[in-house]
């Protein structure tokens, strides 16, 4: 647990970066600090490992006052990941990862073995061990950065916009892997971002900071979306928060209707036959939906991938309301495709059916349940 006790940071020129911050980052959970630039989120983060010294107040790491521990000792017990990874360009990937164990005087052989294990865990092939950072892509460097932060198995991790310098596809991938890694490791994490979507996706709790280092709201993401504390938070959280809040409510058993699909390679006549409302769903030979086919486009050729409309997203049977609604809204036929755990077709739902479910849940006052799965993928 990390506890901020009335922590302030005021610079010599009178700028207040952080203003009497009281905050608890519970053990084993991800606390996200989010806010516009100048809100003191990075300053707050860096005060934890004393890269920046607070002007007043205390920061506790469990029952230790961080001010009472020598800085280098404190820092070796706290993993730290930054935006551009900050890997040492002159050391190999493996040597980068073993930095802190080496500083702590751990057994070299053990440290290397653990580093290789961590590399596998963060999704880096073993042959990368001997490479230098410049030989890696930005996303790969960031994976090394995470492995390096975890190398000495610190209970606490500080992450300063770790995924913002990579492209959106890699970012989503890193975020998902980060969440599953955290599910395994259960570290106490403080995570800084300026991206509210990232905060909502990753945070067990989200602290929204306002310019001047003032804590505007501290809440679980669902609550942030459904009950912003003030107009600043409401504005920062964004416009479509009602829709995004659906991402925290599991849809439950939706009234899935059977869909008559055809498989790839089917005769055009068969496809026209099966079409409903002008569209027919096409699956592969293992009943996994591949896309929609407009009946009138089924000419003389057999059904192939080239003919498919790929616009529709898929929702799994355990999807959130948001994913289910999105599947229906994004589908060219208006019928959202629901699949089972292994991606096989279960049937379809319409947007109005999902909306009915949303209204039902509202009426029964069913609270939004904790974080659902990842985003649906385009077929």
């Amino acid at each position, binding site marked *: 647990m990390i506890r901020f006790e009335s922590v302030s940071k005021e610079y010599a020129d009178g700028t207040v970066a952080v203003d009497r911050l009281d905050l608890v980052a519970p053990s084993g959970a991800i606390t996200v600090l989010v806010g516009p630039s100048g809100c003191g989120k990075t300053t707050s983060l860096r005060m934890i490992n004393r890269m920046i010294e607070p002007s007043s107040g205390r920061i506790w790491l469990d029952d230790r006052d961080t001010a009472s521990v020598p800085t280098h000792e404190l820092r070796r017990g706290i993993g730290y990941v930054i935006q551009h990874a900050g890997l040492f360009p002159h050391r190999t990937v493996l040597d980068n990862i073993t930095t802190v164990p080496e500083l702590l005087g751990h057994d070299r052989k053990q440290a290397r073995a653990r580093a290789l294990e961590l590399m596998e865990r963060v999704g880096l092939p073993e042959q990368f061990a001997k490479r*230098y950072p410049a030989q890696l892509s930005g996303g790969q460097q960031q994976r090394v950065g995470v492995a390096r932060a975890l190398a000495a198995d610190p209970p606490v991790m500080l992450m300063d916009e770790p995924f913002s310098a990579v492209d959106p596809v890699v970012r989503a991938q890193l975020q998902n892997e980060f969440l599953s890694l955290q599910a395994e490791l259960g570290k106490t994490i403080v995570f800084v971002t300026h991206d509210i979507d990232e905060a909502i996706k990753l945070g067990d709790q989200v602290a929204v900071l306002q310019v001047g280092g003032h804590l505007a709201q501290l809440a679980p993401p669902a609550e942030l979306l459904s009950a912003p504390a003030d107009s600043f938070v409401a504005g920062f959280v964004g416009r479509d928060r009602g829709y995004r809040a659906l991402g925290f409510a599991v849809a439950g058993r939706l009234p899935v209707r059977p869909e008559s699909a055809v498989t790839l390679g089917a005769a055009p006549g068969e496809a026209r036959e099966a079409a409903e409302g002008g569209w027919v769903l096409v699956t592969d030979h293992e009943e996994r939906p591949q896309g929609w086919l407009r009946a009138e486009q089924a000419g003389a050729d057999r059904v192939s991938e080239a003919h498919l409309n790929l616009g529709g997203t898929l929702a799994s049977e355990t999807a959130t309301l948001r994913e289910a609604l999105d599947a229906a809204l994004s589908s060219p036929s208006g019928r959202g495709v629901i699949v089972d755990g292994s991606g096989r077709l279960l049937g379809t739902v319409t947007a109005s059916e999902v909306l009915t479910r949303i209204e039902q849940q509202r009426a029964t006052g069913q609270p939004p349940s904790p974080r659902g799965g990842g985003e649906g993928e385009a077929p």
Partner: protein
Amino acid sequence: MSAQSLARSMPQSLPRSLLAVDSSPLGMFGYFREHRDEVMSWLGYHAWLSAVPVVAGLLIALPLGWLARRYRWTYPPLVTAAGMLYTIPSIALFVAMPDIIGTQILDPVNVAVALTVYTVALLVRVVADGLGAVSEDVAQAATAMGLTRRQRLLKVELPLAVPVIAAGVRVAVVANVSLVAVAGTIGVPELGQLFTTGFQLSVGSPYYPPITLGIVLCVLLALALDLLVVGATWLATPWRRAVGGR
């Protein structure tokens, strides 16, 4: 009495026909054959006098450069003062050195110390800038992982400064080879003697062989020492090789 000792004892009066027939630049080969032992010993001294001050100068410039980096306010005075040292004419420094450090006028130590001063002058800025070349991200990560200031210097800043410092050392080495030759005019035994000899033998018309030989050997020596520095840098920076010398 050999021709070379004659040349040294009374170069002015020696009939040129006794020395070498060819007074053109190509005559340097014949000149070298006739004076091989002496020239080789000069070459050895010259190499020594060029290299040792670089090593000594680097060892002095490292802490000074670090100081200029560590306490930013010391950077302007240190770098300016070091730069000023370079404006002292080398011949003046060679002559004044015995008074400063209490040596004999022809002691090669004078040259070594004077050239160390020049190397320091060149390298203080280079070391300071090299140590500062570490990117903000890397410096931050190093601090955040709990490296002490000392560890950061030795494990991160210094290794990363090697390419920058090496570039400065290459300049210093080559500059020293040419500066050492100047000391020949005051009689210190090294390749500069060849120029003095050539000058003394140029009575009436120029006598090129020793002069050309001196130039060629200085260039070759500079190339060899430069190659040595490049090789050492190559060995010390495997990470740069890995990405194609970026």
